[in-house]
């Protein structure tokens, strides 16, 4: 029987497009210090550390070893996890496994990225098969644009429908003091922004951000002593599809990895109607069209109904299922930290520490991670000890 596990503290940097004032270790350290402060622990209380970022983004391997002065990992068990866009959620899930196993009681999870230090697209292109896919592949945006073009063809969704997702997330970011882009946009702004890869425009996509996030997990019995309202892990699920793009792009089925992962998590948690039962969702939506399509995979609404569901206001902060009160990925994207920020923000909601972005009475929260070749991580957190 695994140990019950809760998130007891979170910390994040104040995200920006460029942080030349700190090197990588120093930026990691900022988030770690904030997470430890949040749960009134010291680094000596931490039994083990999981850390992750994107391969090739900073061109330094073995972050687990070279960052120890920043992470606090000197002479501690520390392990690197990197799974592309899902890295942050995978870091959280690996930390959850560590505590659940009973081998460790207090584990620190860290995700970080200095996007400013490389050509992001060139770095992402290295995730593709060098013989078959790399020649034509051009990074995240066209890959997502291809998905969007197929979704629009299948359901008649429009660029205008997608723009509403940016309007919502960027409006929410105004309430998050840590968010990178804190300036509201209108549908007209998004529609008028430059076309990057049809049908995706500059206003539809996430920014490149320098930032880090750290989360402290603790075992049952310790968690309740550390914080009055821990965010308990109810379920997690990981699904990977093919990494050859031609095998992961059966678009007509929706985002199958997310559908599959969320069904497993809902089943474990006894959730039948996610839109009614979940109080808040922090979703890895790297571009606006994901805000239409991926909520269908999550069963918030039926396939093809995403545009209507968003337009009707159901995902607003006071709607049926508030999505991304933090401002989401469209407002902040320090990639290796991005999915951990989803988990941290879900925990913040349950812990009641959301300040102006707090969803009133949030008790059951969903966080997701999304990775380049259409793979997915899902984490469910709850204020009630499972």
């Amino acid at each position, binding site marked *: 029987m695994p140990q019950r596990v809760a998130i007891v503290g979170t910390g994040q940097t104040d995200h920006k497009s460029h942080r030349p004032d700190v090197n990588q270790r120093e930026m990691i350290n900022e988030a770690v210090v904030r997470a430890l402060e949040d749960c009134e622990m010291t680094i000596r209380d931490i039994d083990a550390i999981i850390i992750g970022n994107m391969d090739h983004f900073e061109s330094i391997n073995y972050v687990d070893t070279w960052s120890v002065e920043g992470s606090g990992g000197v002479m501690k068990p520390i392990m690197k996890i990197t799974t592309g866009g899902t890295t942050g959620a995978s870091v959280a899930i690996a930390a959850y496994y560590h505590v659940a196993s009973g081998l460790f009681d207090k584990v620190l999870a860290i995700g970080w990225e200095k996007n400013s230090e490389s050509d992001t697209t*060139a770095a992402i292109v290295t995730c593709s098969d060098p*013989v*078959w896919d790399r020649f034509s592949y*051009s*990074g995240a*945006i066209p890959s997502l644009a291809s998905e*969007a073009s197929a979704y629009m063809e299948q359901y008649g969704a429009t660029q205008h429908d997608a723009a509403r997702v940016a309007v919502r997330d960027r409006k929410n970011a105004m309430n998050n003091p840590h968010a990178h882009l804190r300036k509201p946009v209108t549908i007209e702004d998004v529609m008028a922004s430059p076309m990057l890869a*049809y049908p995706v425009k500059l206003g539809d996509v996430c920014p490149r951000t320098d930032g880090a996030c750290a989360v402290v997990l603790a075992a049952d019995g310790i968690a309740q002593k550390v914080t009055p309202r821990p965010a308990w892990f109810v379920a997690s699920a990981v699904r990977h599809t093919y990494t050859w793009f031609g095998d992961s792009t059966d678009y007509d089925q929706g985002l199958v990895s997310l559908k599959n992962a969320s069904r497993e998590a809902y089943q474990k948690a006894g959730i039948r109607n996610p839109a009614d039962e979940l109080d808040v969702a922090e979703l890895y939506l790297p571009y606006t069209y994901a805000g239409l399509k991926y909520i269908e995979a999550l069963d918030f609404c039926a396939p093809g109904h995403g545009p209507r569901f968003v337009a009707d206001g159901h995902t607003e902060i006071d709607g049926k299922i508030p999505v991304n009160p933090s401002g989401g990925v469209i407002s902040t994207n320090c990639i290796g930290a991005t999915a951990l920020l989803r988990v941290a923000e879900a925990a913040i909601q349950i812990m009641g520490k959301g300040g102006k972005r707090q969803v009133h009475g949030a008790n059951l929260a969903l966080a997701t991670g999304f990775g380049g070749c259409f793979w997915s991580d899902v984490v469910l957190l709850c204020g009630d000890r499972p």
Partner: protein
Amino acid sequence: MAHEYENHAPMTMRMETPMPYEWSIGKYGSRFFQEIREKNQFIGIRCPGCGKVYIPPRRVCGPCFKELDELVELPNQGAITAFSIVNYPFIDPNTGIQRPIPYTYGYIRIDGADNIFSHIIDETDENKIKVGMRVRAVFKEKDAMQGHINDIKHFEIVD
């Protein structure tokens, strides 16, 4: 001492060194390139478990986790399942220099295959390309082929 430098901008250091690699293409992948060089002909491979035909051919079907060995000839044409017109600059990690833009990145379902082939399509006008359009492969001259994915120059729209 420190205070007199406090207003100076933080500095960065730049690296632009390319790093060479040499990747194995594999048994059936190599065969694929030989077939297009000799016959301008695509080949795929059928899984004995699920019956799916994959292009390019590979040795294992992921979902079935079975070894494959039944090569099948496929036509050099199919239909566009998704595409995007790439219109922003980035460094190509294969060459170390900026990839020419605009170009159209396309997912193509080759007739007779069950998965999708990714390549480029020589149409960059969004009003002249649609999901579902028929496309055909255009090959390099035989002597210019090198066992590289760009031995297929691009796909062209045929309807």
